């Protein structure tokens, strides 16, 4: 039933920023708990393991490893986030990842294909796989859980068949550099890669500038903005972290190539989801498919492309993982789907669709990654690692839901 609000007696609109007394910082935090809460928990988890591992976690070598180990999860989480926001799930990504790695190995090692055409073909095959699965989900309305469960079995089997049960390797050196290479340093300083620090600093500066520009635009249109103090604090913390991490990495071997790929993808997907009509329509599709359809959104085609995109990203992740191991094994990619899906849910995505942010999924992936890494350094067995990760996933989502129902 309706609120008996006398609509005619509309009070003065509370929209122009000047008239609105800035909501208190605490109040704002409470309303945006999800976004800040995630970041705070990542920092807390890192601090916790930094202490528990006697500082090993933040050592330049380990930080570099952390990035290398998680890059493929993060990359797949970007695609998975779109799939989940659109209201679906993709269980096949681990198998696809392994299958593409196997395909790359067969092409490059057994058939001596050059790296670039082989890699492009692999990405194309990834797109086809995504298209095939998306076809069933989008146009025939078969539940994505079932389609991709089938895909999981199919591509796991195909990877085995392709490799004939053997490991195939090693890869050509150019290909290995995708995962184990670092960006070149023109300054050539020994022991410290200043180019990497420079890139980090420039990125930090760009981040600050674009945030300032965005805020100015918001204010000009009288939109609600976060309190200024919080805004500055956020920028400073983010920029500081960027500079700090690039400094750490610069003092080892510099920024890994894969980090650059990952960072560019994160920026691109964050932009797509938050700023473009395409992203907007995906949220509408997941939020209320019928309403989206009745508003002229081509829901079927959109669902289809979400899966195509997922296929390409899973293929890219497969290439990166294969390059990192320098060999394709029949077991590659197993269980990745669970980490990827967990990353999205830890990052605040909703299983019923329509909710979730790219940065959330990225943070979620790193939460999982830092925990894996930290617990391994601490010497916790793989058995209890799983238990702890499971509990963290459950509690993250529980806090989310609890917070929403409050």
């Amino acid at each position, binding site marked *: *039933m*309706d*609120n*008996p*609000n*006398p*609509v*005619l007696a*509309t009070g003065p*609109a*509370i*929209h122009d920023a000047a008239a609105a007394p800035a909501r208190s910082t605490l109040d704002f935090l409470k309303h945006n708990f999800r976004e800040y809460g995630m970041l705070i928990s990542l920092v807390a988890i890192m601090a916790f393991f930094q202490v528990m591992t006697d500082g090993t976690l933040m050592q330049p070598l380990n930080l570099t490893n952390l990035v290398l180990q998680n890059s493929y999860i993060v990359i797949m989480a970007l695609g998975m986030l779109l799939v989940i926001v659109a209201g679906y799930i993709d269980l096949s990504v681990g198998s696809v990842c392994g299958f593409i790695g196997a395909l790359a190995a067969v092409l490059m090692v057994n058939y001596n294909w050059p790296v670039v055409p082989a890699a492009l073909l692999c990405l194309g095959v990834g797109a086809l796989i995504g298209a095939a699965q998306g076809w069933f989900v989008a146009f025939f309305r078969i539940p994505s859980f079932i389609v991709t469960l089938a895909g999981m079995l199919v591509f796991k089997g195909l990877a085995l068949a392709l490799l004939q049960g053997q490991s195939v390797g090693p890869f050509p050196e150019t290909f290995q550099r995708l995962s184990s290479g670092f960006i070149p340093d023109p300054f050539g300083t020994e022991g410290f890669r200043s180019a990497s620090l420079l890139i980090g600093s420039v990125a930090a500066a760009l981040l600050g500038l674009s945030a300032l520009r965005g805020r100015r*635009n*918001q204010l*000009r*249109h*009288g*939109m*609600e903005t976060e309190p200024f103090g919080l805004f500055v604090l956020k920028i400073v913390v983010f920029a500081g972290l960027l500079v700090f991490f690039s400094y750490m990495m610069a003092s080892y071997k510099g920024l890994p190539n894969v980090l650059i790929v990952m960072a560019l993808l994160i920026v691109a997907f964050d932009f797509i989801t938050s*700023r*473009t*009509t*395409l992203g*907007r*329509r995906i*949220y*509408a599709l997941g*939020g*209320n498919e*019928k*309403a*989206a*359809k*009745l*508003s*002229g*959104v*081509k829901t079927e085609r959109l669902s289809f492309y979400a899966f195509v995109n997922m296929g390409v990203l899973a293929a890219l992740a497969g290439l990166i993982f294969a390059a990192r191991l320098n060999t394709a094994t029949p077991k590659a990619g197993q269980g990745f789907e669970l980490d990827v899906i967990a990353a999205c849910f830890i990052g605040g995505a909703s299983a019923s669709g*329509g*909710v979730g942010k790219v940065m959330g999924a990225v943070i979620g992936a790193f939460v999982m990654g830092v925990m894996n890494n930290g617990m391994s350094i601490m010497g916790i067995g793989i058995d209890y690692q799983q238990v702890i990760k499971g509990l963290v996933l459950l509690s993250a989502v529980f806090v989310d839901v609890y917070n929403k129902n409050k």
Partner: protein
Amino acid sequence: MDTILEMRDIGKAFHGVVALDHVNLRVRAGAIHALVGENGAGKSTLMKVLSGVHPAGSYSGQVLFAGQERHFKGIQDSERLGIIIIHQELALVPLLSISENVFLGNEVARHGVIDWVAAHGRTRALLAKVGLKEAPSTLVRDLGVGKQQLVEIAKALSKQVKLLILDEPTASLNENESQALLDLLLELKGQGITCILISHKLSEVARVADAVTILRDGSTVETIDCSAGPVSEDRVIRGMVGREMADRYPRRKPAVGDTVFEVRHWRVHHPQHADREVIKGVDLHVRRGEIVGIAGLMGAGRTEFAMSVFGRAWGHRISGEVRLHGRPIDVSTVEKAVAHGLAYVTEDRKGNGLVLNEDIQFNTSLAHLSAVSRAGVIDAGREHAVAQGFRDKLRIRSSGVSQKVVNLSGGNQQKVVLSKWLFTDPEVLILDEPTRGIDVGAKFEIYTIIAQLAAEGKCVIVISSEMPELLGISDRIYVMNDGRFVAEMPTAEASQEKIMRAIVTRH
């Protein structure tokens, strides 16, 4: 004859909105008692009070059944005494057999193990009673609606029914099935079963009812005893609609121009039952600046008609022609319909209209994102300004345009849906139950917006089950029944009686 049921001074309110106001109903044992009234008159609410769906304590007044005051806490309590409701949407499980459905929740079992032989035997006996010649093992899915209705009655009989309540039982039945059902009711009456029949079809009521109670706006108008002779339809219709027409609508001077929008020979089939024709050849035209109403009861096919025209959002095997300014236009997808200047404001704003979890801004721009973006990138400032503009213009009460629509009241949600479609700058606006579930003040505002749109020269089609609303705001009214327009009249010549008569008269 004794009184089996008496409901005294029943009152019920939902969040301060009165649904039932001192309703009285007295039903004699062994009679067929008809309950009539418009949609929203309170019939269903009254039956929910009786059956315990609205538990004792949530309403005021007394319910007396078989001579004793009852305080039903739930539907189980009323069923135990033999009060069984058969709802319009049947509560059968399609993939279970007839006998599984008949004994669902009441299985013929010992220690949880079902005795199928006994169950089938008893089902067969019950089916014979209701005159349904089907094997007990037939799946309900494979039965037509009419036979499913009989299964429901068999199920009621299996529970030793004393008072059977049927809510619009013939709404989805054809002529023969309806007659058979009414015969069955008379037969059950012969066996001493009392029946409350909710129906819109006065001819049926006249045929079987021993008494008729008319409800209007949550109160009893009168109860007519039919033993003296058949009821006068006029008297019932007047009772159903006779409410005061106060100054609830904005005054406007219609400035109607040439015909702009036309739909010709429109036929639509049901998406699941491909051979069932739902819209059976509808012709409609709307002139510039005209507000056209479509009257009819629920299930007449009005929403299906509107949605099938709007980008084939409903139905299958659609045929017919849509014209704008005399030229046929392609409205085969929602996108194309929108591009041609059509807009459809759904009757189900939560289910089909809004992305509830998103804010006002998001919902306002959704159908016309191209206007707030460049090369696919949304200009957040422009979007904000647009939403802000509509918020001010339509007086949407909210803390700002970034408030989630789920937290808005019904009237304000409806204004957000309107904003979304007004932003597409439509030429033809179809409004489906635009004021359903919103309060009186907001209603007036919505009417004002509709009047403004017509004054701007747009074609407006309003679908409504509230006849006073149609009479209050439209220039011309089509009356729809069973997938056809059964009458068309200028509002100046229309009256609620005339509309109701067109609906209830058999065609």
